[in-house]
């Protein structure tokens, strides 16, 4: 029995070391486009705001699913909330766009435009890391 208990303790130690409590907004439905240069940022963003675009061209924002045309309302609401807090302005907010690889570019640009109308200024496009050369099309 002793070896089994040893192995079990090993497994527990493994999972305890790997435990990740951060609530990263990453919906599994979205397959990001790959890039060999995609590296997690060295400095965490001051005010990150994640906007996700699924391949059905719906937007996942604020724990809800929206059509792209209906996105203005929640964006304005979020902008007002951030402004109301006082110490952070909309200039400090980085909008992180996590769009599926098969989404039309025009839709992504529309989302960016709606964010700009809500007075967000800084944008970051997110891709997943890749070890192989992503400049060569497969």
């Amino acid at each position, binding site marked *: 029995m002793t070896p089994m*208990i040893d192995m079990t303790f090993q497994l527990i130690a493994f999972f305890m070391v790997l435990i990740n409590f951060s609530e990263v907004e990453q919906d599994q439905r979205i397959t990001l486009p790959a890039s060999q240069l995609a590296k*997690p940022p060295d400095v965490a963003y001051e005010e990150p705001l994640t906007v996700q675009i699924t391949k059905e061209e719906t937007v996942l924002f604020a724990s809800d699913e929206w059509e792209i045309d209906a996105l203005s309302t929640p964006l304005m609401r979020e902008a007002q909330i951030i402004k109301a807090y006082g110490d952070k302005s909309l200039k400090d907010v980085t909008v992180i766009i996590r769009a599926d690889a098969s989404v039309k570019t025009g839709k992504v640009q529309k989302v960016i435009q709606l964010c*700009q109308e809500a007075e967000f200024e800084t944008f970051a496009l997110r891709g997943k890391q890749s070890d192989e050369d992503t400049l060569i099309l497969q």
Partner: protein
Amino acid sequence: MKIRNAQEREKIELNMTSMIDIVFQLLIFFIMTFKIVLPEGDFNIRMPLASEQTSAEPSETPTLRLRIRAGDNGLLAGVTLGERSFGNGADAFQQLHLHIRGLVDDEGGPGTASEQEVEIDADYDLRYDYIMRAITALSGYLENGQRHQLIEKIRFAKPREE
């Protein structure tokens, strides 16, 4: 304490079952809450507001225009930087990258990299995947684990009609 004789030693039995049960409970907890988070990276883009386009920006280096055309189903039809075309083959972005490297890397003279701005003008239907590849081709390269930065200022042109 009285020193006992060697033969009179009692055997103390310890029942391990309870501990094993709790250990398994802990193990199941950690397995259930284990989340595989893949690392993701960001590319920052500049998006000037529409009002800023009317003001003249005297920059020394002219903005390069990257035109990416889409074919059926948003697949790549052509990549063109300014006047130069890179086709739509499997290595179109690789060629674009090498061209940019020649323009902007250390050989281009100091300071050109931070000045150069590229505007991406893509068809509406183009798959977003190609945009990411274009940005990868423009932004830099990895050599021996070191990342070298090429273009720093990337922005999108106005969206084209559907």
